[in-house]
């Protein structure tokens, strides 16, 4: 509640980016995942963020919790390689069903390393 507003941290994504920046400042490797497109009943809108650091700490979300595990695994790869990746989860992607995107939508998630 940095600015004393009762809402800060609840609804805005600022905190995810702030946390990512502060991890990076502490010298940790960080990857940032961003929802770039959605189709159907996706629970989180375009522009939603999730940040992960090398210790596996997570802040934010890109779905209602159904694909976060898979995104974090990919984010660890991106942290290693430094190459951005666009991931797709949805009705056409078996993995998404395995990890439970049962909401009947599809989403694209762009994952990049914070250099």
């Amino acid at each position: 509640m940095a600015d004393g507003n009762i809402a800060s941290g609840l609804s805005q994504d600022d905190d995810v980016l702030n946390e990512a920046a502060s991890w990076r400042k502490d010298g940790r490797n960080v990857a940032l995942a961003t929802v770039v497109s959605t189709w159907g009943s996706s629970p989180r809108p375009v522009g939603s963020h999730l940040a992960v650091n090398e210790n596996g700490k997570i802040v934010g979300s890109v779905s209602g919790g159904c694909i976060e595990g898979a995104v974090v695994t990919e984010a660890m790869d991106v942290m290693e390689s430094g190459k951005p990746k666009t991931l797709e989860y949805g009705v056409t992607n078996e993995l998404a069903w395995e990890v439970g995107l049962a909401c009947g939508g599809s989403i694209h998630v762009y994952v990049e390393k914070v250099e």
Partner: protein
Amino acid sequence: MKQETLSQILEDQAGKKAVALVTDMEAGDQTLVYRDSANGPEQDNAEILNIARHAMQDDRSKIHEIGGRKYFVEVFNPPLRMLIVGAVHIAQPLSRMASVAGYDVTVIDPRASFATDERFPGITLNGEWPDDGMRELDPDRRTAVITLTHDPKLDDPGLEVALKSDAFYIGALGSRKTHAGRVERLTAAGFTEAEVSRIHAPVGLAIGSISPAEIAVSILAQVTEVLHRKVEARAAA
């Protein structure tokens, strides 16, 4: 993303400055676009700047295909604003709920006994007379204005300023009868029928609300509905 790009976005957000981040989804290169400047590899690409600036206006982040390449245009606008006239009981839950929904809320009320930090913890209070307060806060197309005092002396001056602005939503508490009187006064003050019809009154969606918190829900629901319908209409146009 470069660390300095991230820091710049955070600095802009803290300063309530609108910025769009344009990402080349193959190469990962990123350009920051502002209303009157840009910084990054695409800073001289007129088409990209134009698309990014429209996205900022429409508050809509999405992927664009430009010259056979995919770019994600992500808009970081300052929060939407809600200006509430009247530090009354309904304003307490409404200001809190709207804050949770992401609005930057200001409650305008010159009556010092109503507009107190105890009654509105963490909410910005403006103690000016509503027309002065409203002019000072200068509602734009990303602002909702709601009057709640029930008192024409306070509500009307606020509404008169709001009606001359681009506020995306204007709502006024009061029964149909109260509103009929309001319409008469505003018409006498020189507002056209079309202008006066921008006011949502009785305010809020008809969901049978009784308590102040329930009325706040109905108001916030209507503001949300109007907000997204307007964005969709602009995107379709």
